[in-house]
């Protein structure tokens, strides 16, 4: 029996890797994507282009402007002299923000009144706009804190000490890159397995496979092992890049991470084979894989938090294996989450995997035409 399965596994690997194009597809894009997305996918803004329209020109206003100029997040690209210049700059997306300081600003400030600053922001990308506004507010808060002791008596009666656990500098990359580990593992294993049965169906070789002494369970095993091996290899590579290239700290236990990876592969290989055995043609298999992958990525908490979704969408996410693995990866990487706290992520993955593998095996025999 093991000989038969071994032969099938070898055959699967040959089918996958003998064609140079499909070999390239399995190996090159994940590597490129990890690097490109690791750098691209960040919510941290740098060099935000902004323009200054300063009607005041006294020292306090210049100090305020220079605190924006000195920030690594902002980059002054224009200095305006008329109000009419604001709209064209923002409309054409040349600047994301205009800092407008009115004529009384310095006088208000030195005479103890509140000076007001108008910040005009391009809201077309409202996410960038709201991140930008938090930067503006913190620069202004710093300016206020620095201004007070010199010019105004009394300090505020309470201060906030905000600390962030696990990611003290709130670096987006620490959050996104471990997510990419999960993302690429998901995409590669699903694509590898989703077409394995469909391709044989289309070419008619699956019938041949069914008349061999191989039992459905053995076919299932032979078809899933390549997915596991490729998944493990890709995940190991991406984890190494995450730790050594992107310098994301790996706080937790690597064995816990690999146990989670095994569970995750079980579920994605199961889903892939299930899709594959439902499909009659490769095109259907591919569409099926796609129709699973896209929601799996969107509803996983990879880019946007699950907690922000409407309730019914949140309920759907419980069916998504990626949701659980993302929690495992981020937990092990950043929070040093111990094994026992992750059990609630492990068993749903195992269940999804078992159910789908069983379905796939059952479909092997039932769906023949």
């Amino acid at each position, binding site marked *: 029996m093991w000989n038969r399965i071994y032969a099938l596994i070898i055959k699967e690997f040959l089918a996958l890797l003998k064609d140079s194009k499909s070999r390239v*597809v399995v190996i090159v*894009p994940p590597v490129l994507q990890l690097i490109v997305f690791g750098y691209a996918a960040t919510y941290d803004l740098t060099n935000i282009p902004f323009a200054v329209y300063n009607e005041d020109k006294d020292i306090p206003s210049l100090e305020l402007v220079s605190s924006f100029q000195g920030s690594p997040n902002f980059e002054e690209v224009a200095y305006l002299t008329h109000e009419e210049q604001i709209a064209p700059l923002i409309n054409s997306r040349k600047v994301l923000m205009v800092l407008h300081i009115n004529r009384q600003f310095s006088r208000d400030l030195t005479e103890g009144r509140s000076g007001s600053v108008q910040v005009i922001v391009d*809201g077309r990308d409202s996410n960038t706009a709201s991140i930008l506004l938090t930067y*503006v507010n913190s620069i202004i808060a710093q300016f206020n804190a620095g201004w007070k002791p010199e010019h105004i008596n009394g300090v505020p009666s*309470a201060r906030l000490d905000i600390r962030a656990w696990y990611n*003290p500098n709130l670096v987006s990359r620490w*959050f996104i890159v471990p997510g990419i580990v999960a993302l690429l593992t998901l995409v590669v294993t699903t694509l590898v397995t989703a077409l394995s049965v469909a391709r044989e169906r289309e070419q008619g070789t699956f019938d041949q496979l069914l008349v061999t002494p191989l039992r459905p369970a053995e076919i299932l095993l032979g078809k899933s092992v390549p997915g596991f091996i490729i998944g493990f290899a890709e995940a190991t590579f991406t984890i190494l890049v995450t730790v050594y290239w992107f310098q994301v700290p790996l706080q937790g236990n690597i064995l816990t991470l690999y146990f989670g990876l095994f569970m995750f592969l079980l579920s994605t290989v199961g889903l892939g084979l299930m899709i594959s055995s439902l499909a009659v043609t490769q095109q259907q298999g591919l569409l099926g894989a796609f129709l699973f992958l896209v929601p799996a990525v969107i509803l996983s908490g990879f880019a*946007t938090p699950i907690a922000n979704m409407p309730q019914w969408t949140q309920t759907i996410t419980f069916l998504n294996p990626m949701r659980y693995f993302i929690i495992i990866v981020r937990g092990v990487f950043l929070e040093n989450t111990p094994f026992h706290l992750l059990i609630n992520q492990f068993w749903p993955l195992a269940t999804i995997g078992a159910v789908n593998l069983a379905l796939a095996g059952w479909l092997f025999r039932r769906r023949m035409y």
Partner: protein
Amino acid sequence: MRANNMVIQSKSAQHGSSILRMRGLIRKEFLQILRDPSSIAIAFLMPVFLLLLFGYGVSLDAEHVPVAVVVEDPSLDTANFTSGFYGSRYFNPVTVRDIGTAEQELRNHSVDAIIYLRSDVARQLRSPEGAHIQVIINGVDANNGRIISGYVQGIWSKWLGNRALARGEKINLPVKVEQRVWFNRELRSKNFLVPGLIAIIMTLIGALLTALVVAREWERGTMEAIMVTPVTIRELLLGKILPYFILGIGGMGLTVAMAVWLFDVPIRGSLWLVFVTSSLFMFAALGMGLFISSVTKNQFVAGQVAIIATFLPAFILSGFIFDIGSMPWMIQMLTHVIAARYFVAILQTLFLAGNIWSVVIPNCLALIVMGVFFIGLTWKRSVKRLG
């Protein structure tokens, strides 16, 4: 004279048969579309499904953030402060007795943040140095962490203002920020996400449609069969592009209608401009699909390339959710080859800001260049294969 006539005749015959051949090809393509429901599904069901999924699944508006509130020595002052959290729609506060329990809850993700008022806060409030209010945030999701800390600061400064007012003091903030957000005053994230999503969805659909159908012909050997007929490469490409172009535009119309009526996204630009720019974009997306399938000639590889080269880059590199200006310059260069990047910029502007030519024209030019480039490349490759 006679020979000349014959040449003219044969030329016009050629011209006539070219139209005939094209009609035949397009008819064949449409029959194929109608008989295999999967392309119709890709063009019409998929955009609806994806837009619903993205529209409801992607949101950056954090509300009802669970926070643990620990007050070691409750008093009127602390109650005034914490009431700001209980009254806010951004927070879902739970009162926790001691900091140990709260930290436990932060660890197992039942709360995203802790507001910690130590027992000496009441005394410190009366002292000249002022009190320290501790806030601990789970920083794993850095963006969310930043949003939460912004919300906390908002509540804190409002409380300070009220406190000063109640004591008859002046609010002592030297500089106040007056923020004006143009085009999307309440920063509703659907307004910018939905137009961006349309661009991403159509990228996928355009590429998938052509990538799969042409690769299938290669794989089944029917492409060779077409090649031996008098059909020219130009006719063949046009015959492939036109039917799927019509399908794609149909899908596009559907998503725009959903954006306006289902997701209530305002549309401030003109519809005809949306149509023209979408056509240009479909041209580029289909061109890319044709190119992928003419290179790979294999459904497995074509489909994988279409997914890998369109969906993820369109999602991450188009500026739809991650700001392009903040990426390293190498990656910024790379975003220029992503067709979705231009279409995201066009659609966000047309939906939220109106017909702003300084945005629309450069981006349209880029789309035209991409379309011509990919179709030209496919053309060249196909000629070579014929020989």
